[in-house]
């Protein structure tokens, strides 16, 4: 139930983000979710796309530093307090979240949270037990 995420290293420079997303656009890669982490000097873009292999290929061809990482996508209700609830569960279980980001489902009344865990299997076990549903890869990639 893990999901393929692409991470890209970028310098903090005007126009770089447009260049990189342009490369993906020209290759016909559609972005499902995106999150950006940045410092004064550099940033890391994290992406979930519909065609992961294609995206990795075109980015590498352009000499961009990319890495594939495994993340977990979990469905939560789209209402106040829902994120806090799931984070409480994880916190109590001592699960460390490296980072997370979210997006809304266009059709259904729910939010999808993408988590990067130190130990994704352990986290998945706990979340499933608590009644959360992790989304499988093909569903998110083709959303």
């Amino acid at each position, binding site marked *: 139930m893990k999901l393929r*995420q692409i*991470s890209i*290293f*970028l*310098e903090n*420079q005007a*126009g*770089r983000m447009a260049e990189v997303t342009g490369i993906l656009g020209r290759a016909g890669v559609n972005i499902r979710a995106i999150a950006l*982490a*940045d*410092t004064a*000097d*550099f940033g*890391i873009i*994290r992406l979930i796309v519909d065609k992961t292999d294609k995206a990795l290929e075109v980015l590498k061809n352009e*000499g*961009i*530093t*990319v*890495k594939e*990482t495994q993340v977990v996508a979990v469905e939560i209700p789209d209402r106040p307090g829902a994120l806090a609830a799931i984070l409480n569960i994880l916190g109590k279980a001592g699960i460390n979240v*490296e*980072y997370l980001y979210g997006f809304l489902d266009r059709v259904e009344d729910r939010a999808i949270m993408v988590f*990067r865990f130190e130990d994704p299997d352990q986290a998945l076990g706990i979340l499933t037990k608590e009644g959360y549903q992790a989304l499988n890869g093909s569903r998110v990639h083709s959303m």
Partner: protein
Amino acid sequence: MIWNQEMECLPREERRALQLYRLRRTLRRVYETIPAYRRKFDEAGVKPDDLKHLEDLQKFPFTSKDDLRDNYPFGLFAVPLKDVVRIHSSSGTTGKPVVVGYTREDVDLWAETIARTICCAGGGPDDIIQVAYGYGLFTGGLGLHYGAEKIGATVIPISGGNTKRQVMLFEDFGVTMLACTPSYSLCIAEMMDEMKVDRSKLKLKAGVFGAEPWSNSMRNEIEERMGLKAYDIYGLSEIIGPGVSSECEYQDGLHICDDHFIPEIVNPDTGEVLPEGEKGELVFTCITKQAFPTIRFRTRDISRLTTEPCRCGRTATRMERTSGRTDDMLIIRGVNVFPSQIESVLMEIEETEPHYLIVVDKRGSMDELEIRVEVREQIFSDEVRKLEELQHKIRKEIESVLGISAVVRLVEPKTIERSMGKAKRVVDRRTLENGPETGGKVS
């Protein structure tokens, strides 16, 4: 222990007589057998027989690295290839590499000089010596190997890399001496920390470290972290490889095997020979080598000489630890900085050839050193924290090696210019006076 009591402790006058005899013979030989030397001697208007005293050597022309490249690959060999039993070569970051050859006699001579080196550092037949210099075209590995075998030590030819295994063998084999580059020794020390190795259980007593410039502060760090005594050894493949000179237990300069390699110190700008004790560029002439007898080779290393006998009893000329290069040395906040030192640090951390750019600039009246490091896949983590840790680690290591602070910036691959020749590694904006930056990216 002194390996070769007779030659290493030869009185100065006898030493000079021997040098003169060997030098005359060598000059005649290169003039007769190597057209490139004959041409250079003729152009300079000197004949081998013009050498009446050792001091006459300064009438003869220098040999530069370019001369070696121009005669690539075998143009400066003094014997036919059938008499050459070994070839070594420099890595050749600038155009053609330098190729050197050894006859069987040369290989024996080399082993002799390394035997002196290892004994100088307290080694002997009872030692177990781990040779973690690279084996191959690089002279480090095989050079140390033959010398260690010659004294009858037990040699572990592990070569460079595979750091965990290096540490494992220290423990399992009871290694007493280590031979590698100083920066690699720190890499091993780090692994020892990681593996929580109890230093007191190891038998390591000494390390012979060379092939790159290193500071006294680095020596202290190595000695403390490895739990051994760190000896500086010096050599270059154009002369023979490691084995040209080495420190004894007094660590008061490096003993040059000057019965085989005559040292001179010259003014790097004018080429004029400087009096004993003055600082300048080291120049060496091989007087016993058969296949590749280099005459007055400009090393570009800065040092000074003394012919005072050492407290250890050796009478050979001593050279001060090299304090720089005539070519790529930077002086930042009064400290000598060599791009190679920064490169070694990055190599340790990345475990592969790093791509980096050194930018020196003025912030107010202070020099500022910035190092731009390309983030390639092997060091890229998708967590900001880990990249910042990497940045911090590079900064810390560089500060400990150079003794000055540096700003480390992580940049995208290919942002640092690669030219056809030598990669441009240094941009010194202090001298450009607001001129354009030439090494960075123009986006």
